């Protein structure tokens, strides 16, 4: 099974990745608006807003990611660190800046 990753509001074409694909291993600055920094869930370089394309939700952020999100995007329920995402559904992804 593959899942679609869309980048609304940009000219980047949508991509298809297999279920379980780790975004930090699939997305680059060449094929997407995403930029990865530390890739360990700390630096916030890959801060994005993510929403599922269909009814299936992504697994919620782990405690450490949640802690980082409270610093970088407090109150934004759609915010995630892309480096921590393993695809479990199709998603729309928007790059956002840390506060």
């Amino acid at each position, binding site marked *: 099974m593959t899942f679609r990753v869309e980048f609304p509001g940009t000219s980047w074409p949508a991509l298809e990745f297999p279920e379980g694909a780790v975004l930090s*291993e699939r997305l680059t*600055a060449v094929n997407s608006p995403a930029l990865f*920094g*530390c*890739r360990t869930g700390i630096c916030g370089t890959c801060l994005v807003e993510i929403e599922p394309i269909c009814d299936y939700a992504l697994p919620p952020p782990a405690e450490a990611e949640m802690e980082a999100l409270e610093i970088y995007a407090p109150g934004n329920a759609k915010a995630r660190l892309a480096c921590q995402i393993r695809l479990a559904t199709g998603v729309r992804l928007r790059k956002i800046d840390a506060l």
Partner: protein
Amino acid sequence: MMSSNNAFLASQYLLVRGLRTLNGKIVQHRLSRFYADDADKERAPLPAAVSYYHFMDESHHFNTSRIIGLDVPRSLEPPTAFERWVASRGVAGCQRDHFHFSILVNGIFWCDAAAFGTVYRLLRSKLFSFDHGGAIEMMQACFAEDTAALHASFQTHRTAVESYRAFVEGVSHLTPANREMRHMAESDVAGYLARTRRALAGFRAAA
């Protein structure tokens, strides 16, 4: 010395370090996965563990570079013309250092011609047992031909160029040429082949 008692210039040292470490992690992250995904970490091969901890170390470097290089300047007075010039020179130096891409190590931005002597000695060693002609022929095939390895290394370089651009996208005190990584973006396959063919001809004549 130039950054002595100057917080802005000191921060820009970390901006340049942030750029430089972005490149490393494109490859290091992949290498770190062998250990990270290993179910039996106690028995994981040591090189895999070294790659993982090296990656963690580099990630720490990146975190500090991002905070000090990008975030701290927002809390400082706007840079003077001199400070802007120095920051841009720092990024220009990074672009020069990272202009080349390497077939020897995909993801390392060194000039392969600098390693010709070492590669030749390796090929002539007992490990490979090439005679002089065979060693030169192998080097010709590896470095002077249009190969899949060359294109794979070039692709990594392109990813780095785009990543560097994204990293400094909002850094308005850099000159456009440095924000857009124009010098690095000039590096291409045809240029690599022209330079290494020239260097290899010189190496062959001297060997």
